[in-house]
């Protein structure tokens, strides 16, 4: 390790790092703007200047030395720097003064104020007075959609936004325009930012140019936000989040760093979709339906009494859990109903796919990658997934993994990977191979080497063909399988991604077959192959682990509905999962329907007893992400109204019933323990986060920053007598500003703040090294960790994988195969209740290719009726869709009667009226919208 001298002090630093990284890693405060740990250095802002000296004599003689940029200077053994010397600090002070030349004096009305990197750096460098007497440049702002607010005057031209948006996230509609001091960052014309990851601009921008629009209009400073470590519940990736609450409302969601999962970035569904917790559709009180069909509010004791009564005696109980509820709540529900009467809440197709994903991952000889592993992959094959819409954060990771080719080229020239501009210049358009086989065009097509648009069964056949090529069983002329196979074989860390989106088991099996073939054929010096299987919901894999294969699906329960007296539904909208006919049959034949949910869903609206559940922001729970990582979320604020965590309702019921298994369960941690004891596969969930006994140096961890304001006035309008702070007996976090937020396990990090570093850039104070794991360790516990014991499993790997490819897809006359079109905004249930996404949700549509369209005599915007009154949808013509297939927007109202993989007849709807679209200023996106 090189030893460098900074201000007469010797430090040993990491080989290959740049000086800025090294300084920050050592805990030294060196101001910077344009450098970002995930985006490298370009030396644009000149802020991290230090003085370098030739040698010791040079330094001692008081020579002038030379000014170098910390972010562009690689640490070398024996180098001598001055960080705090007069010349260096004077230089940095003048730089920040020139960056601030046109700054508009609007911090009080800026949503970045109080967590602004520019404020921090200005204070750190000691700049105060503007000496230049000329006028300030001003700019006009642009409308960038309902999510991002633009205030161009505040810009300091660090170029982080375009580097993130274009280079990192692959966006095309944000650019630097004009020249010299007229530089402008925006779109070529006003319109919604196209990228699904645009929300990260809020955190990437070191000042207030890009801010969260919903926060700007209902603002609270960072120091006033109460927050707790949470996990995103809008897809199965399990990104770590930091929701901030004030006055009982969720104000915003920021990224919570987890080096193995989301790193520094979130997708827009996770960042902006979590506002569903403020929805008008939230229910606050238990309701009991009277004989006139109206709900009457009852108090929680009565509600509990009703719940207990319905579960007592000879009543036949059945229960439906949910893949969007926590493992703990589902476990208690399963205990209450008994294993035979508990459905994990999937429909039959979802259930078999979730179970298949679990067993394939368990038995695969390949590694199950984390997102960080995905970013390391150097050849990727995606089967049947539009990842940007089904597991968005993985798509962002894939945009980084195709750059591994560039890093390999850079390494040959001994160029460090953080030399961002140099590495990009070197590689130009050379990318690591990425192959996409999907039913429609996908948002990753632009970086793919080959895109194949095939019917689901044909995707699986291609997958099997590739597997055969890899294991050498087929002749080499079979294209494109051969090309793909060769690319995967020559890679060091090949990655195969498939998932349940298409509703097709063969695709996942084919993916597993490729991964296994690669694992068995791998050459000595290469890493293992990786297999990533995506699932639709936050806890889908957890539900597959909790329930056995033969657990009843929703359809199976509907079959025997006549035998059920009491049906308890936990946080599940059945109408989204199965055709209305099936659900109606189920719900109408049961005597008592009890629904426990946070939102007023159609299922809840048919219940006899409705119980208000706490949302993810008000309760604790563990969920298992698609890589098998058990992660705990914690309540950000106390429950409003009579809401209670689902587990609390169910535990109270079990206690009242005197259930033997509940005898030793008194609190949340006990449920986690009981669940891990009962379910061997979920044994690790207790390690997802420390239990409520954890104390950080003897004290709890505060949810409120030290400067939390208004404590004695917030509730003064209700009563001037301040209540005691709510005590949190269930977790190691406290609803106060007292405690210690430092060095605790990563799963308990409620906010990032460090003296002098008020912005989210203070994160490096919490990391072991810049871009490395948190000092307290990475959050979450992997339940499927097969990285160590691969060798044992290679033998039985082949057993789980079906080796026969399905028959080729045949388009049949008059019948179309239903395939999915996922949408980042809308396909997920919870985020579709979020107010700030409402403008971006579009109506359900069906996509067919032009040959089919002319056959059906429809054009863009016409209506098509599907099957016998299954649905009536707007037509979109998309020629990437194979003939005989029809892609419908999954998860969007109007399509719930449809099942993936079903064949339906299509007919032009005669009385179709085009639904009125919200007037969103059009962005010039592709045909997929």
């Amino acid at each position, binding site marked *: 390790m090189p030893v460098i001298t900074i201000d007469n002090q010797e430090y040993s630093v990491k080989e290959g790092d740049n000086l800025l990284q090294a300084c920050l890693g050592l805990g030294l405060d060196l101001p910077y703007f344009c450098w970002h740990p995930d985006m490298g250095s370009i030396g644009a802002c000149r802020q991290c200047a230090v003085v370098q000296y030739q040698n010791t004599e040079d330094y001692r003689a008081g020579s002038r030395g030379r000014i170098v940029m910390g972010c562009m200077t690689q640490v070398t053994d024996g180098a001598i720097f001055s960080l705090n010397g007069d010349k260096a600090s004077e230089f940095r002070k003048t730089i920040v003064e020139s960056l601030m030349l046109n700054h508009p004096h609007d911090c009080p009305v800026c949503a970045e104020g109080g967590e602004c990197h520019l404020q921090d750096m200005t204070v750190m460098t000691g700049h105060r007075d503007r000496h230049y007497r000329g006028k300030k440049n001003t700019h006009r702002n642009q409308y960038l959609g309902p999510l991002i607010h633009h205030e161009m005057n505040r810009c300091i031209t660090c170029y982080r936004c375009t580097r993130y948006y274009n280079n990192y996230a692959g966006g095309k509609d944000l650019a630097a*325009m004009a020249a010299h001091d007229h530089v402008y960052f925006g779109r070529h014309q006003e319109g919604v930012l196209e990228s699904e990851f645009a929300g990260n601009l809020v955190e990437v921008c070191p000042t207030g140019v890009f801010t969260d629009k919903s926060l700007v209009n209902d603002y609270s400073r960072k120091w006033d936000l109460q927050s707790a470590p949470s996990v995103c519940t809008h897809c199965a990736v399990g990104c770590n989040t930091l929701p901030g609450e004030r006055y009982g409302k969720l104000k915003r969601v920021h990224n919570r760093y987890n080096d193995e999962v989301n790193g520094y970035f979130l997708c827009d569904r996770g960042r902006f979709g979590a506002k569903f917790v403020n929805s008008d559709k939230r229910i606050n009180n238990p309701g009991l339906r009277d004989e006139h069909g109206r709900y009457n509010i009852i108090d929680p004791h009565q509600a509990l009494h009703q719940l207990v009564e319905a579960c007592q005696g000879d009543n036949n109980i059945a229960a439906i859990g949910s893949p969007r509820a926590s493992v703990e709540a589902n476990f208690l529900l399963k205990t209450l109903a008994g294993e035979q009467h508990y459905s994990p809440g999937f429909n039959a197709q979802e259930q078999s796919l979730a179970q298949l994903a679990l067993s394939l991952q368990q038995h695969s000889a390949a590694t199950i990658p984390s997102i960080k592993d995905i970013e390391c992959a150097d050849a990727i094959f995606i089967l049947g997934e539009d990842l940007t819409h089904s597991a968005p954060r993985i798509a962002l990771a894939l945009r980084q993994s195709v750059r591994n080719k560039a890093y390999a080229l850079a390494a040959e020239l001994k160029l460090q990977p953080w030399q961002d501009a140099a590495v990009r210049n070197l590689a130009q358009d050379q990318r690591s191979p990425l192959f996409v086989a999907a039913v429609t065009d996908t948002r990753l097509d632009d970086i793919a080497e080959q895109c194949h648009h095939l019917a689901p069964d044909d995707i699986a056949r291609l997958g099997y063909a590739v597997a055969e090529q890899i294991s050498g069983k087929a002749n080499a002329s079979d294209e494109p399988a051969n090309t793909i196979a060769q690319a995967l074989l020559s890679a060091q860390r090949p990655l195969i991604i498939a998932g349940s989106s298409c509703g097709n088991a063969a695709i996942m099996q084919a993916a597993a077959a490729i991964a296994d073939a690669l694992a068995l054929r791998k050459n000595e010096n290469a890493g293992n192959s990786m297999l990533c299987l995506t699932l639709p919901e936050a806890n889908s894999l957890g539900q597959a682990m909790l329930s056995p294969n033969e657990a009843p699906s929703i359809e199976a329960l509907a079959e025997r509905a006549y035998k059920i007296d009491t049906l308890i539904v936990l946080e599940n909208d059945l109408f989204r999962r199965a055709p209305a006919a099936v659900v109606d049959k189920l719900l109408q034949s049961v005597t008592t329907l009890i629904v426990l949910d946070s939102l007023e869903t159609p299922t809840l609206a048919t219940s006899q007893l409705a119980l208000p559940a706490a949302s993810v922001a008000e309760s604790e729970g563990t969920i298992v992400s698609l890589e098998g990582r058990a992660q705990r979320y914690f309540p950000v604020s106390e429950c409003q109204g009579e809401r209670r965590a689902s587990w609390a309702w169910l535990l109270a019921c079990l206690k009242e019933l005197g259930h033997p298994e509940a005898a030793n369960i008194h609190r949340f941690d006990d449920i986690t323990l009981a669940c891990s004891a009962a379910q061997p596969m979920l044994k690790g969930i207790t390690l997802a986060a420390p239990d409520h006994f954890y104390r950080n140096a003897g004290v709890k961890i505060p949810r409120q920053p030290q400067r939390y304001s208004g404590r004695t*006035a917030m509730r003064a309008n209700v009563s001037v007598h301040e209540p005691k702070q709510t005590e949190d007996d269930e977790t190691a976090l406290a609803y106060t500003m007292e405690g210690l937020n430092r060095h605790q396990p990563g799963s308990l990090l409620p906010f990032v703040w460090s003296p002098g570093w008020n912005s989210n850039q203070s994160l490096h104070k919490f990391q072991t090294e810049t871009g490395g794991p948190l000092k307290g360790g990475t959050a979450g516990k992997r339940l499927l960790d097969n990285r160590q014991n691969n060798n044992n499993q290679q033998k039985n790997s082949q057993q789980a994988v079906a080796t026969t490819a399905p028959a080729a897809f045949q388009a049949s006359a008059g019948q179309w195969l239903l395939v999915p079109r996922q949408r980042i905004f809308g396909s997920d249930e919870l985020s579709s209740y979020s107010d700030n996404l409402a403008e971006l949700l579009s109506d359900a549509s069906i996509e067919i290719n032009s040959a089919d369209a002319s056959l059906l005599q429809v054009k863009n915007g016409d209506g098509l009726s599907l099957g016998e009154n299954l649905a009536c949808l707007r037509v979109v013509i998309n020629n990437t869709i194979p003939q005989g297939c029809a892609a419908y927007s999954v998860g969007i109202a109007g399509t719930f009667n449809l099942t993936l993989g079903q064949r339906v007849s299509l007919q032009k709807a005669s009385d179709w009226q085009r639904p009125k679209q919200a007037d969103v200023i059009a962005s010039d996106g592709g045909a997929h919208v």
Partner: protein
Amino acid sequence: MLKSLRSQLTTIWTILQHSFSRCETVQYPEQKPYLAPRYRGRIVLTTDPDGDERCVACNLCAVACPVDCIALQQGTREDGRWYPEFFRINFSRCIMCGMCEEACPTNAIQLTPDFEMCEYDRQNMVYEKEHLQIDGPGKYHDYNFYRVSGLAIKGKDKGEAQNEAQPIDVKSLLP
């Protein structure tokens, strides 16, 4: 003995002298003492010279308050101005330290020489925005935050604030 006698006499003499000095006690409330404008008494919210409310709900007073007795919520008006949707001071906690006034970037919150705010019921010490807002600029007559700051509001476009040039035409090729 002699020493203590002398001490007693000195004391009596000193007190006697006070009979001839001016009385410091004021017959409050009949007589009211003069309080300088900078006296730190009851807090008000002021308006700018144009008559619009000065407070931009930046939360700096709340965070400066050592007893945390100020709570407010920001909102955005249709004309683009930030304003407090509610603004509450719990005077039963307030220690009249004036830190909020020091912190205020718009001169909105000001302490006045009025200190007569006793109540029989503590709840009446909670002042909402309608109790705090006055119709006038208070001690600072001229300052208008939005004339200085770069944020565009209705009636003051980009480039019209203090020391600002006209907005840049990005499409222009001129230097």
